[in-house]
């Protein structure tokens, strides 16, 4: 049996995840902390000696590191023995800083480590600890490396700290009280903001709020109602703000289909996002405004700002009969969208977006008086049908045009005549995209390629590796010349190295691995 001492690396990277707190609260935290929920939940290394196992990394995220690389621990610290169990109390603290109660718990999937408060697990919502205003709880951990290898490690992103405001009823429930029925309130600080709350919402229950036409872009676009469904019992607390201009935290709508934003909606909320099963927003718009701007109501849409950009939500336009049956204002166009995730939204309209994907001339050289055609592939990559006048320009002057009508995400090929009367070289563009240059011969003895400036491609340099100058033309029709060294056979410039270098590289890596294996076999000095 080996008597060598082996060290296990037991490193936990705790990343605080979704969290909840309510309104304002004085911060009582001293020193730096890993904070979530708008600084209302703070995680810090504990004050005691075991707090040395935790520190804040450069992103101010709490790290629990029980390995030799922990900068707080002595250089001779070797970590935790494999196949061992133990407990470390009071490693870090969680503090709740607002004026309400909160349930706090930790989620992670591993079996090697259990988070403890006062010796009891705090893992899973059912084992939450309840914190009052400015109350802290010290978290320790129990580890069990039985059966793990010496390199057992618990990595990042496996742990999250959750906190959710505790209903007064829920706090009282612990002493035997009964929860109260659902109550809702809606406040209107101004015409473009609403604060709406509900308490006593059961799991799976939907709560509807009438927002009384909250202005997103004046009266042209309004948010009329929201229906929120919770996954578990608790409260609902939102603050909605509308604006015709983008919010700084989300930026301007940048939709792949080129949709244009009409208004923006920002939601701030005080609840764990996981507690919301869905939220349905009901908007309405002024039909006259749509008509003035030539927008079909079917082109209305909603985008949500996600971490990786704007994503479109499915929108349902409510037909007039349904709107009438539901008692909605018959003078407006109503539509609604349901989302499972909350953030900033943009009420937008699809619009056509035309692109010339390819354009080329049927001929590069023609005689004066003769014509040719330019062929272009035109696509509508936007989300709405539309039409566009495509213009062919010669040296920037409009020469011909045609109107193309395309459905959304369709494309077609158009052919337009090009027949300049005068000799010369013309840059031909279709709606701004180059189709190439067209050389028009002045007479039967003209030389279009000479006119185009094409020159001796071989050059007349000295061949000595870079001193000779030749005129090297580009495509037919290019009217500029390029100075370039040339002449003789060019020098080969391969990128890379020979096989001997590659084998040397492999040998170096093998030596590295061998050295590492040797190092493992050398007994460590004690």
């Amino acid at each position, binding site marked *: 049996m080996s008597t060598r001492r082996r060290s296990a690396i037991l490193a936990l990277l705790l990343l605080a995840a979704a969290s909840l707190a309510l309104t304002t609260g004085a911060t009582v935290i001293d020193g730096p902390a890993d904070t979530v929920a708008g600084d209302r939940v703070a995680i810090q290394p504990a004050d005691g000696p075991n707090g040395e196992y935790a520190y804040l990394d450069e992103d101010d995220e709490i790290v629990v590191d029980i390995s030799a*690389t922990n900068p707080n621990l002595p250089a001779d610290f070797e970590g935790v023995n494999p196949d061992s169990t133990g407990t*470390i109390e009071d490693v870090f603290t969680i503090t709740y800083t607002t004026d309400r109660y909160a349930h706090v718990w930790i989620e992670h999937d591993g079996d090697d480590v259990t988070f403890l408060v006062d010796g009891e697990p705090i893992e899973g919502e059912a084992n939450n600890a309840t914190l009052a205003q400015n109350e802290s709880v010290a978290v320790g951990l129990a580890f069990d490396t039985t059966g793990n290898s010496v390199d057992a490690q618990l990595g990042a992103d496996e742990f999250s700290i959750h906190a959710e405001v505790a209903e007064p009823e829920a706090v009282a429930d612990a002493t035997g009280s009964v929860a109260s029925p659902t109550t809702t309130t809606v406040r209107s600080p101004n015409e473009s903001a609403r604060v709406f709350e509900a308490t006593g919402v059961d799991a799976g229950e939907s709560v509807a709020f009438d927002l009384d036409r909250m202005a997103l872009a004046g009266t042209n676009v309004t948010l009329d109602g929201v229906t929120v469904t919770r996954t578990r019992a608790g409260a609902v607390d939102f603050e909605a703000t509308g604006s015709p201009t983008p919010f700084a935290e989300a930026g301007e709508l940048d939709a792949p289909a080129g949709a244009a934003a009409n208004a923006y909606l920002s939601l701030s909320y005080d609840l764990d996002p996981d507690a919301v099963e869905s939220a349905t927003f009901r908007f309405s718009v002024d039909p006259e405004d749509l008509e003035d701007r030539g927008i079909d109501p079917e082109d209305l849409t909603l985008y949500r700002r996600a971490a990786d950009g704007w994503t479109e939500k499915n929108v349902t336009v409510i037909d007039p009969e349904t709107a009438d049956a539901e008692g909605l204002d018959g003078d407006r166009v109503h539509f609604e969208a349901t989302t499972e995730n909350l953030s900033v939204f943009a009420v937008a309209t699809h619009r056509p977006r035309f692109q010339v994907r390819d354009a080329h001339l049927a001929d590069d050289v023609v005689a004066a008086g003769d014509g040719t055609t330019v062929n272009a592939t035109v696509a509508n990559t936007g989300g709405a049908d539309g039409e566009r006048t495509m213009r062919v320009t010669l040296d920037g002057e409009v020469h011909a045009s045609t109107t193309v009508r395309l459905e959304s995400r369709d494309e077609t090929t158009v052919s337009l005549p090009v027949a300049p009367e005068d000799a010369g070289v013309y840059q031909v563009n279709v709606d701004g995209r180059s189709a190439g240059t067209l050389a028009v011969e002045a007479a039967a003895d003209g030389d279009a390629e000479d006119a185009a400036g094409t020159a001796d491609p071989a050059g007349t340099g000295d061949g000595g590796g870079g001193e000779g100058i030749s005129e*090297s033309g580009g495509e037919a029709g290019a009217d500029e010349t390029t100075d370039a060294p040339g002449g003789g056979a060019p*020098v080969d*410039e*391969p*990128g*890379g190295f020979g096989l001997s*270098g590659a084998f040397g590289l492999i040998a170096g890596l093998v030596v590295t691995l061998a050295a590492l294996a040797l190092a493992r076999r050398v007994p460590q000095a004690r």
Partner: protein
Amino acid sequence: MPVTVTSRGGCAEDGVRGLLGALLTRSRPADLLALAAPPLVMLGALALPVETRRALAFQYTDPTVVTAFTAHYVHLTVDHLLANLIGYGLLAGVGYALALLGGRRRFFLTALATYLLAFPVVLSALNLAVPRHAVGYGFSGVNMALLGVLPLVMLPYARNQLSPAVSSRVLPAVFFLLVGWMGVLALPVGGDTLVGTVATAASLALGCWYLYAATRGSDRRWNPHGWVRVVSAREGYGDLFAVAGALLVAYPAVGFPVDPVTGTSVLNLYVHLLGFCLGFIGPHIALTVGLFD
């Protein structure tokens, strides 16, 4: 230390087997196909007649967008191709493994796609900054870009698998030290190399300064002893990190020979340096601005 430990004796090591198991679990067939595509393309290109391959090489006196791209995928000799395939296999393989286990798979694959599709044209175009009567070809510029991204995937790998204490502030130090290392390797001895010498010295000095700035202070102190112990303790995972570190040092040693002239050809050190620098700087900026958070 106030740690309560009860030893139960015995231990089970996962080591190399554990590493391979983790890689097999996390890798995706589509990724492997994407990684295998460049070698297949280059092998296919080798089957073309040599005249065709020469036509696909990038002539600096007659540049085209097409040859700017194709030049990086054609090789005129089997040895040249094999050497670049070995380099690609090591760099892309180790980089992908580090990215998988460091949680940077999407970042690495995005960088790889950029290197494979955009870098050939960019590197060829930048080669035109030094006019000369020459023809360039070969995959090593892209390989050097993969070397450039290696530190960027080593860092999250080290954090996830070795120690979360490692700071991203060491990245600029690694970059400048490697650029300086390449300068030391490539500068001809006794030549008229004042500019190169100054640039190399400046790069090394910057690298040292960044390293000092990244590791000073009690909360970020550099503990080589602890790192050696962690790397050697983690058989398999530590080996992968060590191989990546060895690649960082050894690859420039073969890619920047003192004498780049071989027979009638001249090794394109310029494209090697460009590939490495752009391969590091672009993704580093993308990470710094949070594109992959």
